[in-house]
Structure formats: C-alpha cells, structure tokens
C-alpha cells in the first residue's frame, strides 16, 4: 500500500494486514535438497540475475543521459543563438525567431503554486477524515473513490474543465471574486482584467482538482501507517481528538505528507492537456489571476507540430523542455532537502 513503512501495528487490522509473527504450521515452500548440481545452477543463475538487474539499474542512468544528450542536441540552434537570454527574456515570436522562456516559467510555477495552495488543505482534510474521523464502514469505500479519482486521465479533467468549469468561472466565480476580494486595497491588480474563463486561475483550479486525489490518497496511506499506540498515548494523556490528530498523528506522518505534496506538485508541474484546455494559451507574462497564460508543458503541446525540423523555433521549444526538466529536478531536490530537515527537526517516523 503506497509508501507505508514497516510498522508492526496497524490501526486497521484486516485492511492491510502486517506480517504474521510466527511461522505457519505447514510451510508452502517445497523442501529442496542442496545438491552440488543445484548449487552450481543456482550460483550461475544468481550471477546472471545480478548482471540483469545491475544493467537495468544503470539503464535508467543511461536513459536519463541519452535524454539530456538528445534534448541538448535538438536545442542546439536555440542555445547558440540566445544563450542565457533565453532564460531572461519574455518575447516568444516564431515569425521573427525571437524566443524567451520567462512567461512559461512564470505560468508553470504560478499555476502549480496556486493549485497546491488550494489542494493541500483540502487533501489533508480528506485524509484526516478518512483515517481519524470517518466511521469504519464509510472509510473503505470513500478511500477507494479517492484512489479511483487519482486514476482519471487528465484529458477527461481538461474536457470537463473546458465544458463546465470555464463558463462557471467566467460567469460566477470570477466576477464574484472581482466584486468582493478584488475590492480590497492592494488586491485589485491580482483580480484585475476581464474574466474570460480560460485563464491562470481556472487552470490552477483544474490542477488542484486533479492533484487532490493524488495527495489525499498518499496522505491517507501515511496516516494509516501511524502506529495505534501514538493515538492511544495521546488520548490517555487526556488529549482531545483534534489534539491527538494534530500532535500525535500529523507530526508522526509529516514526512509522508510532504512526500504526498511533492507527488502532487510533480503532477501539477508537468500536466499538459488539462492546462492547455483551460489556461488560454497566450505567450505573455500573466498580469493577474484572470490573465491568459501558458505553461511550458502547454507550450510544447501547442506548438511542437508547427516547428520545422532543425529550425531555431524547434530548438527553442526543445530548450523549453530542457528548462522544464531542470525545474522538475530542482523542485525534487529542494523537496528532498525539506523532507530531510523535517525528519531531523521532528524526529518522527
């Protein structure tokens, strides 16, 4: 079950049964004699097997290396022409062959950040309800539904977003936000512009809806893995349900929860179809939440078919893919450092 670590006690026995303590009365393993011949074959097989898995292991490295080599080769015309300016300019003009990636980096980070802002509290709430509050007869089916939602293809979310969410955002949510929060001094710019429906906010909401099942199902797994004695100890000290959840359970599961958030962030950063269908696909730096924008993934999905082979345009699109690759690696490294820090501070699981 997901990332559940090896813990002896399971708060829900029967659902995810741990390893039985003693040997079963009758071993299912057939008794084999250790003859010299068997031993020889076994040794031979063992070394073949080890070679195989080692090659497969290094194969991943080779694949990553090949990936970077081929991308860099494809991006070469653009790397040569723009150099570091590619990362610091914001014009994307295929007709005049001027390319800068800034609008898309901003679009990618902005939509993912807003999506996390919306999705993390909701997902945590879902996971806490499922593990701490929900009656047992309900938590099983609900958990199943959450996991099912995590497996829905993104194009389906995108289609739903385009047909249902976009008009709803344009006609209700966005004018509503503009009329209420947008009136707060200083926030007018954030909620400025004409609500069109296909914009940064809508695609962030779609991303949030897509990553909520991912984050909450992984969170649920790590909350389930918290030993029952943690809860019992807190309750026996007179803690309320809330205090138990907050101090005994969430802290203990914090590394798993952060892992879940990183998983969600990874999905948000690379999501393509649903974003393309709802973000408005304008190659400009978004001025407000209601501006059209573009993420790196949606840029590639939109434009890769129109760039001629070997052209600077194609090079620029491939270089944008390299930038997305770098952002993903960077986010993962930062997240890993963060997890390490939390583990040291909390001394939890």
């Amino acid at each position: 079950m997901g990332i559940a670590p090896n813990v002896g006690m399971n708060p829900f026995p029967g659902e995810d049964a741990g390893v039985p303590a003693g040997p079963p009365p009758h071993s299912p393993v057939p008794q084999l004699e250790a003859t010299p011949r068997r031993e020889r074959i076994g040794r031979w097989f063992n070394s073949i097997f080890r070679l195989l898995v080692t090659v497969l292991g290094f194969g991943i490295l080779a694949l990553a290396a090949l990936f970077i080599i081929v991308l860099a080769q494809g991006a070469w015309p653009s790397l040569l022409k723009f150099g570091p300016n590619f990362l610091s300019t914001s014009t994307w003009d295929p007709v005049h062959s001027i390319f800068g990636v800034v609008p898309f980096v901003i679009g990618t980070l902005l939509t993912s950040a807003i999506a996390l802002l919306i999705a993390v509290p909701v997902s945590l709430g879902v996971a806490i309800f499922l593990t701490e509050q929900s009656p047992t007869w309900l938590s099983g089916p609900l958990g199943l539904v959450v996991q099912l939602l995590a497996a829905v293809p993104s194009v389906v979310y995108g289609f739903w977003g385009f047909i249902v969410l976009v008009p709803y955002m344009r006609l209700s949510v966005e004018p509503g936000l503009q009329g209420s929060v947008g009136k707060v001094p200083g926030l007018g710019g954030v909620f400025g512009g004409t609500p069109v429906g296909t914009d940064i906010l809508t695609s962030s909401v779609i991303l949030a809806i897509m990553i909520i099942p991912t984050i909450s199902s992984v969170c649920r797994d790590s909350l389930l893995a918290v030993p029952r004695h943690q809860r019992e100890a807190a309750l026996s000290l007179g803690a309320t349900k809330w205090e138990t959840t907050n101090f005994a359970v969430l802290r203990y599961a914090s590394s798993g929860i952060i892992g879940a958030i990183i998983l969600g962030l990874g999905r948000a950063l690379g999501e393509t179809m649903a974003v393309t269908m709802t973000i408005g696909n304008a190659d400009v730096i978004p001025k407000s939440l209601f501006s059209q924008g573009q993420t790196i993934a949606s840029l590639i999905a939109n434009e890769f078919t129109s760039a001629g082979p070997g052209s600077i345009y194609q090079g620029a699109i491939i270089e944008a893919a390299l930038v997305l690759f770098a952002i993903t690696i960077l986010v993962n490294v930062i997240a890993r450092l963060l997890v390490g820090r939390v583990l040291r501070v909390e001394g939890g699981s």
Partner: protein
Amino acid sequence: MSGTTPNGAPPGASDLPQEMKGRQQSSSKMAYMAVIAVVVIVVIIVLAGWQLGWFKSNSSTPATASCPAPVSLTGAGSTFVFPLMYQWYTTYTGSTVNYESVGSGTGISDISAKTVDFGASDAPLTPAQKTNASGILQMPESAGAVAIIFNLPNVNFAAGKSLNVNGSVLAQIFLGTIMNWNNTPLQTLNPGLTLPIDPISVQHRSDGSGTTYAFTQFLSSASTQWATQVGYSTTVNWPVGTGDKGSSGIAGAVETTQYSIAYVDLNYALNNEIHFAAVENPTGAFILPSVNDTASAIADSKDSTNLPLGTGNWSGVDVENAPGAKDYPIATFTYLMFYQNPYAAYGSSYTLQKAENLVNFLNWTIHAGQSYSEGLYYVTLPSSVVAADVVTLDSMNYNGAAIPQAACG
C-alpha cells in the same frame, strides 16, 4: 521466512546468496562494475548514434512495370486535409496508402527526415525548410478558405445577411486597437445593425495551424502594422486574445464565450453549421464564404496562373484578395511534399516500383481525387493549378530516368 530444514538452515534457494556473498562480492566487484560501466557507455553511444543517424544501410532491387504492383505508401501531416485524404486513400486501389494526421509541422519534419513517402502541410515550406530537405518538391493538392466566426447574442441579422468585416478592421481587432463591438470602424461596416458596447473577446488558435497561416497572411496584406509587428506564419506572437487548441477548441470557445470573435476553416464551419461573417473583397462586396466562391477566387487570383515550379519557393504565393466580384478573399492552398528523385533521397532500397506507386497516387489526387472535394466542403483545384502540378509530377525521376506514369486506381 518460514519453515526450517533438519540442519536448521533456511530451506531452498535462500542459502545461495549467503554463499555467493563471501565468494564474489569483494574480489570481482570492481571488475564487475567496470564491465557494467563500459556496457552502459557503449549503449549510450550506440543509441545516440542511432538517434543522430550514423547507421544507414543500403541495399538494392530495382524493378519496372507499366502499372506497378501495389505497394504500401506512407504519408503524414496536415489535420485539415485529413477528411479528404481519408476519402482518397480508402477509394484509391493502385496502392495501399497510410496517412497519419499529425499536424503540418510534423508532416514537414517527417518528410525532411525521410521517414514518410509524402508529407502534407497547410503552409508551404519556408526557404530554410526547403534547404533542409534537399531535392524536395511541393504542390497544392487541395484548397480551402478561412471563415470568421463570432458570438453576438441579441443581435438579429436579416435573412442572408451577417456581420460585415474587412481586413483592416480584423487586423485592428486582433491587434487590440479595436476593443469594443460598437467601435466606429466596425459599426460603419454594419449600418443596419445595433452592435453592443461590450468588449470583444478575441480567440485564436494556440497550436500551429495552416488556418492561422492563411488568416495572418490576409491580415498582413490588409494592415502594414500587422505585417511589421506580427507577420504571418503557422504560429505567431498574438498581441491579444485567448488561444484555443484545434478547430474544435476554437469553435467551442466561440460558442460558449459571448461577444467573442475567431477564425476557423470554412470546411469546419460548414460541417458544423457555424454562423460566419461576410468579408469584404477588393471590389468592395461583402462575401459570405462558400466552396464555390473560394474556388473562383483561387482561379481568379493573380498567383494561380503564375505558380512557382515544384522546386521553387512557394512561401510568397498568395491566392487571397482575388479581383472577381464574387470572390471570397481569404483563400489558401494546402500542399503535398515529396522528393523529386526518391532514389537519391531514400537510397537504392527505394524501388522504382515504389516510386511509380507514389507518382501514380499523387497524379490521381489532383485529377480523379478532386471530384471528392466539394462533397466534403473542400475547394476543387482550378485547372491552372492542376496543370502546374502535372509539370511538377513530370519532373520527378528515378536516379535520372523518368518515372513511368499510369492511371492505376
């Protein structure tokens, strides 16, 4: 894990790793890792070399026949032409044709990489793309028009009338200088209508598209500001507006977004019965697009009787703004691309038989194939264009020798 043998050791295969550990781990580990590292590096180099095209094999089997035995031909590219192409390759019996509807840019990539027998694109090759694919030919195999679609709630049009627009007003709308529907230049074109004050929601294609090419070419000829600031291509740097993916995306956006305006293939608009605008032509008439008015526009256009050779540069070809009184002004060709000398391009493994199959199929598309155009809302090629295409096909050769042509299919 469970169960023990009489001597107390774990049973079965689990005793082997323990033994192996002692014997192999320390002594051969370094050599082992070195071997793996070498293998991995060789794999990287081979894969990279394969990617970069270091290994290409040549073998040969030439053959001849007057109507050659059918072989399989592969094409890729334009999604716009796919419905017509589908009709063609399911009807044509002279060869087995496979067509992948993957987009014009990919079509150009694939024919340049010589992974297909022909490519299809709604935009002609740029000079750079032509240089990149030495020996390539291009010819128009069909044509279409770009319709202007809009969403104006509560505006009632008289029967047979629609919104009137012209190139200059469209350019200003898509530049963002005309921002409201009742802006004077737009209202002046529509004296009988009360246009609303609401802001115009501009929608454009987000993916590369031959429709965008034709539309921006039209705007470039109508507005010098558009020509210098934006220019024309399959994707451009749009000054304003929302991008939607594909014809269906843009049509869906206009349907659900009040006060929006956009452009879409005439073919798509007619198939889906979308209401479109009348566009002013050079004689000052406002024309609602139709397949016939587009065909006459292409026939009347200055460039259609003065087309480049198949080897020439088509990126300047402009069949828009034809002078006829009933000609619809936003017309465009769609192109097939293939190699003049398949033997030289693909190597001797490309048989003469296959070259004959290719030229016969291409010939069929511009002659018998044209009869399927109108039913699918494509524009039938005028005879002047077919004549130019025939010259292009006749210029094909197989290692210097003319390729025998026959009507097969």
